[in-house]
């Protein structure tokens, strides 16, 4: 089977290249931090994962509304893809954060509001995928996935704003003014690197979903055929 070169392959390769460049600058060119020393370099993967996880969840929220509105299979597929890739980045975020926390704060974990809401975030969206796997009818599956995604999204702005609204161990957001310029460079490069890789991953996940759906339709046409219809009709 010959596969032609797709747009997402190019984007994925660009993401990979940027990730190498950004990480190289972050690890070997950027200065160590005055107090955190070398351990601050974890920032160049931690913060891009955080930004992109929240971006993906926000996209999933928008896709879920469109999916519920139009009930087209492709919107269900992109919603699921955004949720799943978001979960991967969210999980990485928690592990990286834990390692960084051990080095700086002195503990692997603390029930601080930022950490707790970030953990709830990954659990909520994992719940969306779990719920999805229990529903056999494609139409209902799309409806429930979308509703669960919209409800789970509540936690996303909470993760962002909690450090301003409530007291926490985690510090508030930094700005380009509070970060040394040579640290901003690898941070931005890696942010785009992870974004491009995430889009590549989403594209693959969408293809998996659409291929599965086409397959189901061949296997059980009577069950899937009335898209959006209920099974007991």
């Amino acid at each position, binding site marked *: 089977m010959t596969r032609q070169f797709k747009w997402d392959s190019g984007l994925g390769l660009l993401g990979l290249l940027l990730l190498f460049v950004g990480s190289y600058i972050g690890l070997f060119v950027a200065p160590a931090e005055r*107090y*955190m020393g070398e351990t601050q370099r*974890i920032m160049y993967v931690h913060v891009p994962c955080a930004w992109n996880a929240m971006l993906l969840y926000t996209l999933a929220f928008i896709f879920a509304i469109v999916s519920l509105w139009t009930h087209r299979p492709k919107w269900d597929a992109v919603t699921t893809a955004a949720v799943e890739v978001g979960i*991967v980045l969210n999980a*990485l975020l928690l592990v*990286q954060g834990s390692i960084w926390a051990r080095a700086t704060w002195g503990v692997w974990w603390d029930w601080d509001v930022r950490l707790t809401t970030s953990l709830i975030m990954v659990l909520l969206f994992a719940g969306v995928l779990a719920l999805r796997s229990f529903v056999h009818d494609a139409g209902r599956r799309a409806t429930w996935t979308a509703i669960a995604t919209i409800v789970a999204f509540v936690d996303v702005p909470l993760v962002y704003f909690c450090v301003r609204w409530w007291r926490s161990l985690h510090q508030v957001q930094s700005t380009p003014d509070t970060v040394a310029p040579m640290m901003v460079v690898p941070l931005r490069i890696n942010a785009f690197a992870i974004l491009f890789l995430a889009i590549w*991953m989403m594209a*693959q*996940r969408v293809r998996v979903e659409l291929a599965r759906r086409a397959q189901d339709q061949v296997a059980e046409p009577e069950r899937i055929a009335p898209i959006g219809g209920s099974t007991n009709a």
Partner: protein
Amino acid sequence: MPDGVIVGGWSYVIAAYSVTAAGLIAYAWSLVHRRRKAELE
């Protein structure tokens, strides 16, 4: 020991980057695998 500064700490950095690389590679592999399975069947 200079006060209040983390000395060394490369092991934490290596651990965090390794976990990130392993996670991204494992997920990318699962995607390619699932896609192949879904498209060939």
